[in-house]
């Protein structure tokens, strides 16, 4: 069965490997571009930072090389964000759906082998190389990211990836650490389950992309901000230039909100956010309402020091979801008529 699983899906495995190799090559080229761009020595000599110096540099040296690097960094970042979903679609969807569409499952399921073994063998024969591939992509990305940042250029470009040059910000967070591997596993299990349900490759591709995108959005907007304790910075304090909040890089800004002033406890069980929202809806004096309720306004952040807590917790959620999806896929395969 191992032989069959590999033989049946080897073309897509080869395509996936080729894509990863090509992407790594591209990243190496861009990193090399940063190394050799004349900008580096210019910056080191002038010691200046910020977008003004870029503009200045463009005036002096001409921008095309830099522009190309800049755009390429953005493009690579988009590819990296989409890669787990793409790999999941490429290798997960055909796992069951392609066989159902070609009716080849009828041949496989009438040989002397159970449907459970048929599917579970496919899981590891395809899933294991997939996890290895996505781990390789993360390693290359980490190298590429550090390489580019240490070259001193990253923060100057105003690109998504280097916008805050902080690993806790969503664009960097989602392509580094352990979450990309968990995302890839999730997309694979999702593709397999939706493929078994839809029985058509085209529908399964669309379904997998939609569900994956929705899950990513919900994760980044509502779940991830709460996976580790947030830090509150009161508006009156001003943003601290140096504190635990800024250790290890810029924090991730989550949103505007309310907190009770230190030492005060509101008599009712209402949360600060509830009362704050009530104050917003008052026609009277907003600030008087806040003071009356011992509330202060401010911003919530996830400090960069929470990076690994967030990474592991989010990965755990995705891995559990993947296991559930694999179980659903198996249940569908055992239940479906051929």
């Amino acid at each position, binding site marked *: 069965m191992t032989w069959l699983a590999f033989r049946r899906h080897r073309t897509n495995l080869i395509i996936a490997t080729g894509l990863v190799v090509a992407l790594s090559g591209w990243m190496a080229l861009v990193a090399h571009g940063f190394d050799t761009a004349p900008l580096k020595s210019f910056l080191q000599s002038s010691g200046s930072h910020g977008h003004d110096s870029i503009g200045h540099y463009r005036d002096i040296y001409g921008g095309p090389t830099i522009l190309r690097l800049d755009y390429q960094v953005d493009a690579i970042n988009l590819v990296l964000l989409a890669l787990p979903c793409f790999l999941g679609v490429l290798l997960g969807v055909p796992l069951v759906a392609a066989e159902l569409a070609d*009716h080849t499952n009828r*041949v496989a*399921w009438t040989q*002397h*082998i*159970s449907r459970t073994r048929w599917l579970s063998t496919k899981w590891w024969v395809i899933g294991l190389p997939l996890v290895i591939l996505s781990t390789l992509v993360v390693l290359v990305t980490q190298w590429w990211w550090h390489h580019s940042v240490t070259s001193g250029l990253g923060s100057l470009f105003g690109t998504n990836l280097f916008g805050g040059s902080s690993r806790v910000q969503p664009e960097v967070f989602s392509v580094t650490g352990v979450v990309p591997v968990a995302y890839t596993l999730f997309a694979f299990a999702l593709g397999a389950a939706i493929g078994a349900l839809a029985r058509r490759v085209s529908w399964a591709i669309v379904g997998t992309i939609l569900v994956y995108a929705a899950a990513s959005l919900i994760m980044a907007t509502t779940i991830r901000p709460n996976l580790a304790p947030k830090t509150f910075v009161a508006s009156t304090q001003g943003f601290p230039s140096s504190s635990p909040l800024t250790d290890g890089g810029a924090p991730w800004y989550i949103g505007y909100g309310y907190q009770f002033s230190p030492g005060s406890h509101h008599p009712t069980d209402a949360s600060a956010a509830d009362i704050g929202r009530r104050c917003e809806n008052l026609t009277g004096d907003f600030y008087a309402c806040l003071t009356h309720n011992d509330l202060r306004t401010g911003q919530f952040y996830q400090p960069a020091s929470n990076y690994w807590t967030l990474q592991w917790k989010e990965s755990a959620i995705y891995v559990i979801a993947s296991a559930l999806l694999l179980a659903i896929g198996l249940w569908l395969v*055992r239940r479906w008529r051929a």
Partner: protein
Amino acid sequence: MTAALETVGLGRRYRSNWGLRDCTLTVRQGSITGLVGPNGAGKSTLLRLAAGLSRPTAGTVHIFGKEVNPNGTDHLARIGYFDQMRPLYGGFKVAEMLAFGRRLNSTWDDEATRGWLAEFDIPLDRTVGKLSLGQQAQVSLAVCMGKRPDLLLLDEPVAALDPLARRQLLQALLGTVAERGTTVFLSSHIVSELEPVCDELIILSSARVQTSGTIESLLAGHRILVGPLLDNEPAGLDIVSSSSTARQSTLLVRGVAPDLGTEWQVLEPGLEEIVLGYLANPKAGTGMDVAATGDSELTGPA
């Protein structure tokens, strides 16, 4: 002796309509049993249920006395299933299809399979998807036979083949089957195809079994009556179907016809006429299949 295949009250519903309903039949061990019926009669549904690819909505299927469990493997060791669509891994080479069979089965007769393909001049290094339909059918059949099954379930094995290829395939099949004592249950919508190879016949239409029995008992048990135009069906006749022109009536009846008078002519029907008679009247015979099976046991194989 336990039956190779036995179904009792077997039914399969697809959403609102039944693909097969209330199907009770027996395929005797060692027999070559044909399953005839028009397209959509439920032949493929029945064979898929027997192969454990589909789960019954009602009733039971037993293969050699054991109930078929779609998630189990007991029945899989004993059957060879040939699907109507001849699904094969299109990108595989013929030799790889054989490797597929060898690796997925506990018993595999590689020599016989290669011999079978060599006999039909199918090169092992050719990609399956590039073979002709007839050659693909041969490869599918080779994979079925390689398992050395005790029961071959063949769904329209010769459809889409030219007459010469049909005859070759059926002859080769019969030769191998006779050697090994394999039971064969094969479906077709063309009666003339089945008549020369089958011992027994089951007629299926509109998702129900109409009649079954050995070819001999079917031939002996039916008569065609041709006579004057009738207003009412005469009593005492078990009429399968009737047709009439402006001047005369033609009746297909079960059993030996009573003497209706000199104006009636009694003819012995061919198998095709019997089958067409049943198919013309889908209600005929349903619910009487048990009696028909009894007949066939009395008559016995010739």
